[in-house]
């Protein structure tokens, strides 16, 4: 009976675990309180893993440079971009965005970019943080 794994696990006990640690060691009673403390410097968190250089996170839009050409709406696969006729600008719903950055590629003025921000979870699909305009 060959059990090569036994040797492997016995060696592994004495090595450092490969898991990325959670931000907090234990689940704090209140996450918001904990984050406040971190903000105030009273508590420390394990920093998140850095995003890679080409990461596509939450979209960023420079409204003033936009010329309202609508090309981004034409290539958005998820219909996440809405045209505002009054000002000839667009409004982007981040909850519907699929982060393909195709609009970035097609934008003739380069006013759309992807930021490395990725902590976007929320309960409200149309919260203020979920609309870029």
């Amino acid at each position: 009976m060959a059990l090569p794994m036994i040797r492997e696990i016995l060696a592994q006990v004495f090595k450092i675990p490969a898991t990325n640690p959670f931000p907090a060691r234990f689940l704090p009673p209140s996450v918001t309180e904990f984050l406040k403390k971190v903000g105030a410097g009273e508590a420390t968190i394990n920093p998140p893993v850095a995003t890679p250089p080409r990461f596509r996170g939450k979209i960023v839009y420079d409204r003033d440079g936009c010329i309202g050409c609508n090309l981004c709406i034409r290539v958005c696969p998820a219909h996440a971009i809405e045209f505002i006729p009054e000002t000839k600008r667009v409004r982007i719903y981040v909850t519907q965005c699929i982060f393909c950055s195709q609009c970035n590629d097609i934008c003739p003025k380069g006013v759309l970019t992807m930021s490395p921000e990725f902590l976007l979870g929320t309960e409200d699909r149309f919260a203020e943080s979920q609309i870029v305009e």
Partner: protein
Amino acid sequence: MNETILTPQELIDRFTRTFGDLVSDPRIQIRAEGAKKNPNTNIWMTITRDILKPAISMLKEISYPHLSVISGWDVGEELRMQYIFSIYFGERHGEYMVIFTVPLTKGDLVLPTITDIMPGALFTEREKQEMFGVTITDIPDGRRLFLPEDFPEGVYPLRKDETGIPDTMVKHLWEVGRPTNRPVPPVTEKEEEPKDDPEEKTVKNKENPSPEAEAKTDE
């Protein structure tokens, strides 16, 4: 099985010789990709429904074919079913795709099953029944494949005529719940000034930063 490998033209000739007018519009599509431009071969033939099974049997005599899928295309007046095969797999760079197009008139959407000669076709034949409303005669298992039990009869999702998906069945999820009375944000033409939206301030780095530059800072 035949040991000699036919050229694409010979293969087409063999079909036209045997089936005559029932094979039409044969074409060889060759595409070369990569740096060395080695060609790959696709052979398209339009055949009538009556010779579908003999044609597949003949393909089987040439080399055991692999049935990828049966596809369909609703072109309006008729429905074209594509039987997508490949033969000569296992030969390095020697595989041909053989695609039989079988046109069906909308009034007579019936096809014979090919599961007796290609057992692996059952899945895709079941799918064709539910998606295109084609009746496959003698199909050993005529249940629905992907569509749920409560899907209405007589609606065929991939058809483009009145039996296709009616607009009433479509719900554009992206529109649901979007705020309609949101104030329009002010626009300043070509001016940099702080905005109510905090995102605006961060727009400094231009799109698609060169990866090498960022990679260096990252490591």
